């Protein structure tokens, strides 16, 4: 018999999950499901615990409660901004090849991942400290795609990427989800991206959490409650319900 998540074809099942540091509780008894092949947007103000939740879900932070990933889940993870020394003599190529070797990726996996995120070969010959913020972010997404992940966990994947680059990355991720059945969990502050790409939304704040589809959950009142101030956002006509 498989895990509870498997029985309902869920990629992830979270039940009463709590995460804290010392005496401070950051995530308090949170429950939600992520169906296989869906895209979950995690939103909320700064300090709400979005990155903490993601780190707990990959098992790099201790937590209480339960969460179970579907059997044989392979996670590709993109962390939030990294503190990289500018003069580190590690090239983008060194980094993605390291990932490919460690996860024993198939031949050509590195090149395919770089093409998917739109990184040119000359960019990955530069030391990672010399890459622009947007190039480095694409490199992290490329590394996450190596090793045939079944789930992508992305902590603000398009932060620092220019507008056309953001669209390309978002479309690529959407394509991977629809065509290859990847499950995607992503943290974002961009509500238009939530409306356009997310199938479900998890909103986190110090006071409460909410979960549902973008159109049912993201009401002006709830956004005001969530961020503590009125939130202005624009929904393109082609994605308006």
């Amino acid at each position, binding site marked *: 018999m498989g895990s509870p998540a498997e029985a309902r074809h869920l990629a992830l099942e979270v039940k009463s999950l709590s995460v804290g540091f010392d005496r401070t509780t950051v995530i308090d008894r949170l429950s939600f499901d992520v169906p296989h092949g869906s895209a979950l947007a995690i939103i909320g103000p700064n300090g709400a615990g979005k990155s903490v939740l993601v*780190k707990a879900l*990959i*098992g*790099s932070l201790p937590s209480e409660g339960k969460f179970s990933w579907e059997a044989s889940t392979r*996670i*590709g*993870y993109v*962390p939030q901004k*990294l503190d*990289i*020394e500018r*003069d*580190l*003599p*590690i*090239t983008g*190529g*060194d*980094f993605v*090849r*390291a*990932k490919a*070797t*460690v*996860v024993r990726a198939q031949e050509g996996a590195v090149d395919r991942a770089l093409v998917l995120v739109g990184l040119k070969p000359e960019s990955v010959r530069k*030391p*990672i400290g010399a890459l622009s913020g947007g190039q480095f972010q694409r490199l*992290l997404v490329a*590394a*996450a795609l190596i*090793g045939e992940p079944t789930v992508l*966990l992305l902590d603000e994947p398009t932060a620092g990427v220019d507008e056309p680059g953001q669209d390309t990355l978002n479309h690529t991720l959407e394509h991977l989800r629809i065509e290859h059945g990847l499950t995607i969990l992503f943290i974002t502050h961009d509500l238009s991206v939530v409306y356009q790409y997310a199938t479900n939304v998890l909103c986190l704040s110090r006071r409460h959490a909410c979960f549902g589809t973008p159109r049912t959950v993201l009401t002006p009142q709830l956004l005001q409650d969530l961020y503590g101030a009125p939130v202005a956002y624009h929904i393109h006509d082609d994605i308006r319900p």
Partner: protein
Amino acid sequence: MTFDPNAIALSIGAGAAAGLVGCFAVMRRMTLAADAISHIALPGIGVAILLRIHPIVGGVAALLVGTILVWGIENRTRLATETIIGVVFSTALAIGSLITSGDELIEALFGGVGRLTTLETTLGLVCALGVIVFVVRQRHRLVLALVSPEIAHTSGINVARLNLYFLLVFALAIALGLRYLGVLLVGSLIIIPAATAKRLAQSLQGMLLISIVFSVASTTLGTCLSFALHRAPGSMIVLVAASFFVLSLLRGVGTRAANTSANASK
């Protein structure tokens, strides 16, 4: 002091091992840790002298125990590694200076000049080979853990275990240079060639190769100079390594000067 082929053989092995470990130590910002961890060897050397066993055996034992202690405290508390190493190192130095005295203390601190036996050389070379094999085989894991421990974790790497192995290999590389460089100078053999390589290299492979070349050149040239000038090898090795580093600074100055003149002519 006469020429000792065993010393040259070991200086090549220890140099290559130190050069490789040093690259990751420098990139992991463990520059101060290298100096501090080497001091942990002192009480071990002191105890070994009291018990009339080989001082290096005591030094290696103390290094390995100290390393596991640093790793254990780091994993169980939220203290910074530098803080833990600082406390363990000062305590070790205090205990070491209490139980070691006179000439023995000077030799432990600055390295000795005695001839190496074939057994000592063979054991040293085996350890050096172990260190080299570890770094070469684990370099991809070490790169991922260096860039992001979380990416390393999701790639199936047990980051805490990898850190322990790296610290143990780091301690072993320090132990290899202990006899010739002593507790005070051995950390510099790990750090200076790697710091030189970091300034010159543009890729991981470049850094590893340049660091090995400078490290082996420093240990062999320093050892040869010590025979020729009848000086302690430790000081000579460190001076040669430091000279390479100073020369590497010229490259940055040259590049900046070229950029300035290029900008001025625009």
